[in-house]
């Protein structure tokens, strides 16, 4: 199965990839390939963009039209790319630092605009690429190279932020939940409007090592342990949910107007008028 998919969707000549042993980004990439297969993606009519970071290096392996943009700006590039191109699917892959530290503004504005883009954030709660500095999702008291005494800043709840910003599809999975991930990716790609899937991944080298996870598997195990399906979470109090990750589809709206549609409508109006 995966062999077929990698042959189909990846640039085999560029593998093995550059990610460290046990890096969760690879698991997410695998799930994305399965989702591609499920939605029967058209390689020639899909553009995949990313920012800068380990997560963003994914585009270097995908046999698509790919754009490796600047740090934090992938969604802004994607917005411009998508606006006049109703014929392409646009998928954006980012890291947590990429999407929420330097790229936070573009993220909330993409949510607001409800433009038809699928954003996948591989949240390893750390800056992997630059060697393990804290990110806006690093949990409190965790160690990183810039929080040597434990992180004292509060972390974002990525999905809550997206919801607050008005996103119409918000979902979450972890690297442990590889098949849920596949399903969410597929649904996100099918969603009409802006869709966002947060994916917890493990960075054994720059997060795990410093935070007493003996190996990548133990990080997956931890994700499994703290995950709660959305349906279950709805019947839990906020105290109970402390320290937990809620997984599944958190928001899935249908009615809202997608940005491109309005743009197209406007153009059509004038064109109609002109011709």
């Amino acid at each position, binding site marked *: *199965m*995966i*062999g077929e998919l*990698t042959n189909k969707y*990846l640039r085999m000549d560029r*593998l*093995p*990839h550059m*990610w*460290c*042993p*046990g*890096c*969760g*980004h*690879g*698991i997410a*990439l*695998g*799930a994305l390939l399965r989702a591609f297969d499920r939605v029967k993606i058209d390689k020639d009519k899909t553009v995949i963009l990313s920012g800068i970071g380990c997560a963003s290096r994914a585009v270097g392996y995908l046999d698509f039209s790919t754009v490796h943009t600047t740090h934090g700006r992938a969604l802004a590039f994607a917005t411009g790319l998508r606006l006049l191109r109703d014929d392409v699917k646009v998928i954006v892959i980012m890291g947590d630092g990429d999407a929420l530290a330097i790229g936070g503004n573009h993220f909330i504005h993409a949510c607001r605009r409800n433009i038809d883009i699928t954003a996948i954030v591989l949240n390893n709660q750390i800056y992997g690429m630059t060697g393990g500095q804290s990110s806006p999702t690093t949990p409190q008291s965790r160690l990183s190279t810039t929080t040597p005494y434990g992180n004292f800043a509060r972390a974002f709840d990525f999905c809550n932020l997206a919801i607050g910003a008005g996103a119409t599809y918000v979902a979450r999975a972890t*690297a*442990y939940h*590889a*098949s849920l991930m596949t399903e969410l990716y597929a649904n996100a790609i099918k969603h009409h409007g802006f869709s966002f899937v947060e994916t917890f991944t493990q960075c*054994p080298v720059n997060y795990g090592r410093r935070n007493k996870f003996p*190996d*990548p*598997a*133990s990080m*997956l*195990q931890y994700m499994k342990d703290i995950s709660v399906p959305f349906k279950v979470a709805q019947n839990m109090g906020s105290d109970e949910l402390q320290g937990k990750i809620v997984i599944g589809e958190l928001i899935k709206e249908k009615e809202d107007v997608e940005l491109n549609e309005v743009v197209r409508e406007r153009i059509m109006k004038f064109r109609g008028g002109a011709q």
Partner: protein
Amino acid sequence: MSQSSHLEPVVNRAFCKGCGICIEFCPANILEFDEQRKCRVTDPEKCIKCYQCEMRCPDFAIELVEKGEKK
């Protein structure tokens, strides 16, 4: 996941980085490290075809393939 009995797990040693994830989560306990810390299948017959290894391998290095089709 179909539990087709004609499938067996095969490791692509060129891709395997020895992270141990598949080994840890294989419910049949049939995966282990070899001397060079790459994944090895000890007893393919015991495989229950749950695909957990394939889905969680970050390196596309383990796969359930038609028996004998070992790459």
